[in-house]
């Protein structure tokens, strides 16, 4: 079947195409060059006047894994406000802050997204993360495996194991957990909480191991680079949400010494202590540091006002914030000498000074970082806001008048503490396409995704240009997934199953000797039962794996 998309205005930053009229040909799920000689078009879509981008990629969204399911079970009252009936095409479920898996897939697709990546896959919970994502239709998915508070790594650091041994362990874990990246959450802090430490600064020692967050960041960032994983170490830093944490964040950037590093939901790590309320925006200093350090990428973790639920691996910080739970119930867990999690429902209020300033800090960050290839559009779903608020966020970025209108309604003291009103920048369509497509695919290391040139998989979103960017991005005209038309006018018309993106970095098989002894002695599962096999993805006939290339590895 040969499909032609005719005459659309194409934004394809991966090929340097910025708003140019172009035809696109699709065959066997992929984009091809215009066939030579005589050819028969089986299906043509007239896209004159339409905006064409590749399918959007959410590079940090909590869509799979135990803490998400705890959040679901915790909040029946939220689901009741957004029941979703099944149709002849679609399964039923629930939406809003902790949507069911099927509704997650449909709603992402209906906004033009074709892939989402779960950033906090605990190795011991990876099976669950993949099983949940296995029930998310249409989207491609993948996960970043969490290390840094696992006792095995901390024991290695205490025992002064060399970098090569750590590389082997990291690579082995990525293979066992079927990951495409590595994340560290409050480096060592989740572990320190189990020893009753309540905070852990960058240079503060774990009371049992004597290891600092800085040590952990250094060895993990090095490992990720040396084993050839494209996605830089994905870092949820120390002191999330603590006023004054900007100093830690700047120190983290400076301290990594040029190694590739991605700082996630940086909004939550950009707080100063100025002003009457001892809470101020550090966005300008963070943006300056990011602009200067080309090894650093960030996503924002924008907050938007309303009810949500925060679900994080960072049980140390989640526990510290439990008094803000709204409604007043919350969960933390210590997990398997591996990590932990914390789930705290939260309501961001525009008339609350802190929340209002958090909102402004996120937007300042977006607008003050120069290079859209190194900043990514996230709300840290659902922690800052549910992913369904992305079109609203895009409008805030692209429409200064709208932004300033909203700004004028938030807590007056917060208005005084932000420079937002004076920032003139409006994101362009091409910059949105970079942040949500080409840049994300490049950052994660996805081959043949995130672009519209020949050879790419045909994940394509078509919008009607509209000055109201929220309306435009809420309801694409068409969404194609692997060349199949899945959404028309913002509604799912066809469903399919996406792939799971992984990498398989090499490791010395000898790494299993010590690991096996450790598993037998201290853990509650046998090593061979821990490793996730390929058939766990494929045996029900729906899932499959796509392995992406490594950097500088023969």
């Amino acid at each position, binding site marked *: 079947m040969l499909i032609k998309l005719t005459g659309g205005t194409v934004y394809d930053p991966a090929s340097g195409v910025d708003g140019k009229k172009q035809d696109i040909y699709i065959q066997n799920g992929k984009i091809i060059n215009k066939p030579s000689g005589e050819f028969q078009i089986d299906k043509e879509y007239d896209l004159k006047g339409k905006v064409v981008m590749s399918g959007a990629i959410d590079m940090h969204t909590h869509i799979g894994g135990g803490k998400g399911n705890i959040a679901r079970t915790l909040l029946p009252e939220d689901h009741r406000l957004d029941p979703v009936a099944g149709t002849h095409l679609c399964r039923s479920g*629930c939406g809003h802050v902790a949507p069911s*898996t099927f509704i997650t897939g449909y709603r992402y697709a209906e906004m033009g997204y074709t892939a989402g990546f779960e950033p906090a896959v605990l190795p011991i919970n990876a099976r669950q993360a993949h099983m949940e994502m296995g029930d998310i239709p249409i989207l491609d998915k993948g996960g970043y495996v969490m290390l840094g508070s696992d006792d095995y790594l901390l024991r290695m650091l205490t025992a002064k194991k060399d970098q090569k041994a750590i590389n082997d362990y990291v690579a082995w874990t990525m293979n066992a957990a079927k990951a495409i990246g590595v994340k560290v959450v409050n480096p060592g802090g989740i572990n320190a909480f*189990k020893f*009753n430490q309540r905070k852990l600064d960058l240079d503060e020692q774990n009371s049992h191991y004597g290891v600092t967050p800085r040590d952990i960041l250094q060895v993990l960032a090095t490992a990720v680079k040396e084993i050839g994983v494209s996605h830089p170490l994905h870092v949820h830093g120390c002191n999330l949400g603590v006023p004054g944490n900007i100093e830690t964040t700047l120190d983290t950037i400076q301290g990594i010494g040029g190694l590739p590093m991605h700082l996630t939901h940086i909004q939550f790590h950009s707080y100063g202590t100025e002003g009457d309320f001892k809470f101020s925006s550090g966005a300008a200093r963070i943006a300056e540091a990011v602009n200067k350090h080309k090894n650093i990428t960030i996503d924002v973790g924008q907050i938007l006002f309303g009810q949500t639920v925060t679900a994080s691996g960072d049980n140390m910080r989640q*526990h510290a914030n439990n008094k803000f739970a709204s409604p007043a119930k919350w969960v933390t867990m210590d997990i*398997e000498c591996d990590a932990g999690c914390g789930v705290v429902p939260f309501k961001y209020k525009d008339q609350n000074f802190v929340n209002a300033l958090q909102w402004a800090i996120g937007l300042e960050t977006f607008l003050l970082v120069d290079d859209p290839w190194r900043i990514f559009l996230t709300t840290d779903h659902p922690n800052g806001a549910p992913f369904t608020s992305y079109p609203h966020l895009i409008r805030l970025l692209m429409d200064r008048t709208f932004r300033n209108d909203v700004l004028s309604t938030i807590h007056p003291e917060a208005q005084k503490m932000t420079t937002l009103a004076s920032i003139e920048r409006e994101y362009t369509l091409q910059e949105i396409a970079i942040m949500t497509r080409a840049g994300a695919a490049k950052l994660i290391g996805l081959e043949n995704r995130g672009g519209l040139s020949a050879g790419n998989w045909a994940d394509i979103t078509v919008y009607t240009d509209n000055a109201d960017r929220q309306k435009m991005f809420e309801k694409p005209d068409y969404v194609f997934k692997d060349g199949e038309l899945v959404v028309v006018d913002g509604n799912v018309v066809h469903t399919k199953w996406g792939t799971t993106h992984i990498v398989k970095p090499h490791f010395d098989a000898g790494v299993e000797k010590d690991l096996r002894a450790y598993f037998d002695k201290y853990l509650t*599962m*046998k090593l061979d039962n821990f490793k996730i096999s390929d058939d766990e993805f494929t045996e029900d006939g729906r899932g499959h794996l796509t392995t992406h290339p490594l950097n500088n590895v023969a």
Partner: protein
Amino acid sequence: MTEIREVPSPFCGIGTDDLTIDVNGQQVKVLSNGCAVNTLAFEHPITDTKPRIDGKEVSLDEAVARAATLLKHTHFPVIAGCATDVNGMRGLLALADRTGAVVDNANFNNARKNILALQDTGWMNTTLAEVKNRCDVLVIVGTDLEGFAPRFFEKYLWNEAMFLDNTSERDIIYLGTKPSGTASTSPSGKTAQVFECETQNLPDVVAVLRALVKGQQIQATSVAGILVSDLAAIAQKLKDAKYGVITWAAGALNYSHAELTIQTLCEMIKNLNETTRCSGFPLGGKEGDQTANQVCGWTSGYAARVSFAKGYPVYDPFLLDTHTLLENGEADALVWVQAFNASATPPKTNLPTIVVARSGMIFEKEPDVFIPVGTPGIDHAGHAYRLDNVVAIRLKKCRDSNLPSTATVLNAIEKNLREEVVC
């Protein structure tokens, strides 16, 4: 004869995966690391291999077609039991969505006691490996732990731990129920402290314990036969512990509104965490109950007592109880899914009944359709959740029985009821 090592068990809830079994044709024998729960469950023989309609053997296709026909003409079917693996639950939920059925896990009235506490105020919980490596004080409330999981002490407490110099010195404290054996006596001979009371008096005992943890003055000198000074000593031990753990089996707290006792325990744990570390550790996870709640959770948003009758999931932890729906005459058909335990027969009813269950189930009243299925972890590969709700174990296929999986059967019934592929 084939020997298979490191076999994970879906039966005991603690996800034991060190069993060695011997497979000889259809016969399974547990060679090592068995227990009263697992050995029996693994060695249960296959007797039925053919589906039946009205007691007569038929092909699988015929049985599936009859089940679909029965369900086509119902308005409020109940799919109960829900004891199967992850793929089985996926198929079950797809069928429920298609038929507008109620999904109700057989153990939900017990699980509900925990879930209600979770949904009202939340908790701070832990998992098995943390218990094994950190727990220095274990308080067991209203539960005979070794009766629940015979190898719990041997496997997780009386061996080496990362953060305890001498695991034999762990404090084990029973509150309410006394242990049925001596598994809780440590290898060095340290015995558990036991403070017995009637199970239904635990709300009072636990309330006083929490009050003592919070530093409140108690006028009474004893509660339900337990000295307040003994409870004060337990409170002090928990405060002095580096990593206390409080465990209970919701099923053992068999009195009305036991969720309030569990909530008091969970809130007490939060109080203790103001100064030290302490975690809850609910016991459960047998016969797929955590699996049912997990898969139903991500598919519908709710734990496994959900109605799809309105076209979207509706959760009601009380009104959607299978027994209530059957007794009130609200349901008009019953589908009983039980892939683990042939003795767990469906509730009595005169409604059209479809049973998808482990081979060897003996019925008082023959169901309209009976389809024997393979057992996850013996006859086919699969996934099951352990009691701590975080760890999904990978179940192995150990023999070729040719019995279909729950998923195969339920997906086939669902497919029979529709034309288009839904995902």
